[in-house]
Structure formats: structure tokens, C-alpha cells
């Protein structure tokens, strides 16, 4: 006897390729969101986003006319009031140095946290990108559907972009936008915008490099352990070797974390902000000026071109690896 096929029929037009790619992205992110580690990372990232907004709010309220600092200073005697008035005056005279410098510092610090959280998340994610699909022959399942290998790849790339948006870019944008919404005047938006753009630029460069590297590493092996080990070697071991003072230049350029540090220094221009502050701000003692100048020197990139070349080579090599391995076996 034949079984009775009591089925609903599906005769609708299939949804477009954008929907199918989004299905890959959202499914990957949903699986990641089920892990406790990722939720912890998410909590840390968005706490940092709120902190950016809070710092912006505190700065604006501290130094703006009629802000809480000025109000509090009136109750603390004429000397404190004079200092606070002087700081307020600095803002009026040097808004680019005070506001721009403050936000450059905040975004610079946030880039360490954002990048760090993303690297930890990618360590968990790397085996799930391509390696596990190759191990279980899932590529055949994907590519026997109305999807091409480019769609599959874009889906996986979207997963990495999603992680970076959730852990880095999202909190950064949120923190800045909220901080600006709460700021008392337009100066804060105008003078923090450039540091914000610098932060986004660095974020974009890191995104391209990390996405390509993660996909390349994930495509190299079929099992989880070698994939994670290779990722850790590239991230931690190569990073540690690059920090060794006697390490040759070419060896330093192998480490993407070292190269990203160089790029960070160039993109954020923290050295310029510090040098400008030491040269322009009055009332600084000689010692404070020297300290700022020394800090500016140490925040200077030494091998930006080499670092960019290193990142470029890594990105190209990784892309070659995952493009070659993408066809189903």
C-alpha cells in the first residue's frame, strides 16, 4: 500500500537571493547568540557603548556654561571657580584640541576593547564558518539549492560583519550618537566627528582583514581544533613574536595584530592630538608639556606602509585559500 501524501503544497514564487543570503547570516548569528560566551562579550561591548555616551555626557556637562561642574565650582571658593572658568575658556579657545582630543582618546581606547572582543568571538566562530561545513559536506546541501558559491561566501562574510557590528561598530556608533544627543551645543558634534570618522575607518580596515583571515583560516581545515589553533597562532603567537624587540621587520609584518596596531596609530592620529595639545595649550607646566610630547612620540606609527602591505598580503592569501576550497568535494 502506498503512503498517503497529505502535504501542503508550496507553489509561491521563491524569495530572492538577498533573502537566502540573509537566511545564512541570521542563522549563523542566532547560533552564536545561543552561547554564553558570546552573550558575555555582547554585554561587555554594549556596556562600553554606554560608557562612551556617559563620558561624552560628563565632558559636555562638566565644561559647558551652566553645567554641573560650573555650578559645583561656585560653591567651592573663588580659586576652584577660576580654574573651572579657565577650562571653560579653553573649550571656547581650543575646541578642536579639548573635544577632539578627548574623543580621540576615548575611541582609541575603545578600539582596543572592540578589536579584542571581536577576536575572542571569532575564535569561537572560525570553526563554524567553513570548516564544519566542509567536514559535514554541507557545501553540497547549500550549493544544490538556488545559491552559488558567491552567495554562500557572502552569507558567511555577513556573519563576520554581523559579529563586528554587534561587538564593535554598533556600540561605537550608539555611544557617539547618544553622547551627542545629550550634548548641550553643536561644538561637541562638530569637533568629535573627525575622531568618530577615524574610529570608523579603523573599524572598516579591521573588518576587511579579519573577515578575510577568518574565512581563510576556516577553509584550511575540516576539523575544529586545527582551525582554532591556527587562528590563535596567527593572533596571539605571531602578535607576541612581533612585540619581541629583536624580531626582524618582515616577521613583525606577519602578525595582523601588530599591523593593525600600526594602522590604529596612523588612523587615529593620537600623536598629532597630543603634540597639538602640548604646543597649543597655555598654562601647561614644562614637565606636563614634555610628558605630552613623549606620549605623542610613543603613539606614532613606525611602519604604516609595511603594516598595510602585510595586511594586504594576508587578505589576498586568505581570499585565495577560501576561494579555492569553496567548491564541494
Amino acid at each position, binding site marked *: 500500500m502506498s503512503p498517503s501524501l497529505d502535504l501542503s503544497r508550496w507553489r*509561491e514564487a521563491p524569495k530572492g*537571493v538577498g533573502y537566502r543570503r540573509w*537566511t545564512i547570516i541570521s542563522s549563523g548569528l542566532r547560533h552564536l547568540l545561543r552561547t554564553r560566551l558570546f552573550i558575555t562579550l555582547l554585554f561587555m561591548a554594549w556596556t562600553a557603548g554606554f560608557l562612551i555616551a556617559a563620558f561624552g555626557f560628563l565632558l559636555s556637562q562638566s565644561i559647558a556654561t551652566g553645567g554641573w561642574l560650573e555650578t559645583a565650582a561656585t560653591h567651592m571658593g573663588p580659586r576652584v571657580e577660576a580654574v573651572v572658568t579657565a577650562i571653560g575658556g579653553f573649550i571656547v579657545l581650543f575646541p578642536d584640541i579639548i573635544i577632539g582630543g578627548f574623543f580621540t582618546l576615548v575611541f582609541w581606547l575603545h578600539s582596543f576593547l572592540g578589536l579584542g572582543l571581536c577576536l575572542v568571538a571569532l575564535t569561537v566562530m572560525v570553526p563554524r564558518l567553513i570548516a564544519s561545513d566542509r567536514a*559535514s559536506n554541507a557545501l553540497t*546541501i*547549500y550549493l544544490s539549492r*538556488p545559491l552559488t558559491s558567491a552567495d554562500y561566501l557572502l552569507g558567511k562574510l555577513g556573519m563576520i560583519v554581523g559579529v563586528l557590528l554587534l561587538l564593535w561598530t554598533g556600540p561605537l556608533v550608539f555611544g557617539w550618537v547618544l553622547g551627542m544627543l545629550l550634548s548641550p551645543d553643536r561644538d561637541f558634534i562638530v569637533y568629535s566627528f573627525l575622531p568618530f570618522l577615524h574610529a570608523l575607518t579603523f573599524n572598516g580596515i579591521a573588518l576587511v582583514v579579519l573577515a578575510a583571515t577568518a574565512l581563510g583560516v576556516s577553509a584550511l581545515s575540516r576539523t575544529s581544533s586545527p582551525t582554532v589553533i591556527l587562528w590563535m597562532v596567527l593572533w596571539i603567537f605571531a602578535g607576541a613574536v612581533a612585540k619581541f624587540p629583536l624580531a626582524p621587520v618582515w616577521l613583525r609584518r606577519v602578525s595582523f595584530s601588530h599591523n593593525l596596531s600600526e594602522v590604529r596609530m596612523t588612523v587615529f592620529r593620537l600623536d598629532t592630538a597630543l603634540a597639538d595639545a602640548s604646543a597649543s595649550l597655555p598654562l601647561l607646566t614644562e614637565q606636563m608639556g614634555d610628558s605630552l610630547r613623549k606620549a605623542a612620540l610613543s603613539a606614532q606609527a613606525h611602519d604604516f606602509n609595511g603594516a598595510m602591505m602585510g595586511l594586504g598580503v594576508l587578505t589576498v592569501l586568505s581570499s585565495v585559500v577560501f576561494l579555492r576550497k569553496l567548491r564541494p568535494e
Partner: protein
Amino acid sequence: MNLSAADISPPDSPGQTDHRFIVETDRLCKSYGRQQALADVTLQVPPGTIGLLGPNGAGKSTLIKCLLNLTSPTSGSARVLGRDIRVWNRASREKVGYSPELDSHISGMVGCEYVTYCGQLSGMSFRHARQRAHEILDLVGMGQERYRSIDTYSTGMRQRAKLAQALVHDPAVIFLDEPTNGLDPSGRENILRLIGSLRRELGTSVVISSHLLHDIERICDRVIIIAHGRLLEHDSIEALKNRHRRIVELAPAAETGRYLAMLTQAGLEVERLSNGRLRVESASDSIEWVLELMRTHNLPPAEVVTNPNALHELFVRALAIGPNRT
């Protein structure tokens, strides 16, 4: 040159599944280095349940992979459901399902989530995919196991999950590569019945690759035989049987000796089989002459089976043909 709408859009709209041929190939070739996996395969396969037969390494899986664009043909052309696989890469697979021979799944998902996800990858909305996933999983005989991680499934359950993902988006044609491998006898029976009823009840054409001739003979109405990458036979089972030696097997209820004497007397070469049956070669497609003999000689009733192992004979003959056949 002006292009008409028919030139720039797929030849059929979604939902329209009436095609004269589900698969058309024209001198399709596939080489791996110096080894030729497919050589000038030209086919026009009408809708139905089609068995794809051939020894190991004959090129069955390669043919299916070429039709799905999982591997690029070296030369020649192919159309699936009227769509050229090169021109309409994605669209050619919209109404096609595939259950590969190798264990293939997306790890880290539970069964129903996996089948739903596959439906979504074919363009179904989550709601429709979810509903169809549960219905198909019921159909392939998966109960509460559907809520377990697919990584923990036995071979048989994975085979069912593979079939479910191939069917979830209500395809017009499905390619099944050894779909009963690893199934226990009752599971195999259920799956074969299901496959056999797909065309009849849903209108879904099936191309099933298997080396189990009995299964193919039971559920298929057409057969394609491939060996050494070449197409050897493609016809309906009925026609193939008739084209080959017309064998009749008789299983008399009693008086086997009289049957033997009667057949020998009629000038036929009779072979007595170990199971007690009598095997003779018939001169015609009809078995009227046997019934006439039984009536004339007043013989007891007998089971009469025509061309009992025709497919097997055909297959063995195909195996005997060398790789250089032209």
C-alpha cells in the same frame, strides 16, 4: 538585435511545472584530468520516476552533479526543467531537490530546524518552510528525533533527513543518489514506497541512482544505464524488457513434470530452476501461447512471470561492454 521577454527571462514561471522533458543534455562531457567521467551523454528524459543505473564509477553521481551545477561540465549543454544550467545557474535549481550519496548535513542544528533552514535556502518563508518541514519529517518517518541535534543521528535517520531536505520546498524533480543506503529493511521499504508515490500523488519526478536493481524495477517507469561515462540505455522499463530476450518463468501449482514434458514437446528449451520454476525463452511478447498450451493440455494453474530478471540481464550486459564502446 531586439530581445523578446522570452529571451531574457527564465522559460517558465514559478509554480509552472509541466515540462516535456525534466532533463535534457546534449553531448555532455566531464573530465577529471585524463579521466573521462562523462562522455557525450545526450538525453531527453520525460517526467516520471527514472532509475539511473550503472556500476561503481560509471558516472551516475557525476551526471547528477553536472545537472545541479555542483561540478562544471567540460563541454556540452544541459537543461533541467527547461532551464539551461549555465545560463540560469540559480534558477535551474529552484524547483529541484537533491539527496546526495555521501553523508551531508549542516551540523549544529536539530532535525526540524535543519529541514526548515533548507526550505528557507530555497526561498521559502520561515512559516511555510516550518510547516512543510514538519509534514515531510512525518512522511519520512521521523518522530521526536526531529528535535535532536542532527549530529547525533544514526545513518538511517540521516538518510531520512537528507530525503526530507530534498523534498521540503516541494520540488518538481528530485535527484536521489543511493537513497536507501544504511536504512533497515522496514525503513527501506517505507522510503521506497514514499519515493514510488511521489510522482503518482504529487507529480514530482524522481531520478534515483541506485545499484539495487530490484528497487529500481519496482518503483521506476524508466531506466537510464550508464557505464564508463557513456549512456548505454535509456527507455521505459517495459520497452527495455521487450527489447531483450523474452524469458517466461512458470511456477506450476502441481504436476511440474507434465509442464516440463508439454513445453519440451512444443519444441522449447526448458531450464528447471532450483526454486522449482521452469524457464523458457518465448518467441513473442505475449504469453497467450502459454495459456493456450495450458488449456489444450488441461494443465493445473501456474504463476506465469514474464521477463523476471530483464533488468539484471541488461545491467550485466552493460557491465560486460568495455570502456571503448562507441
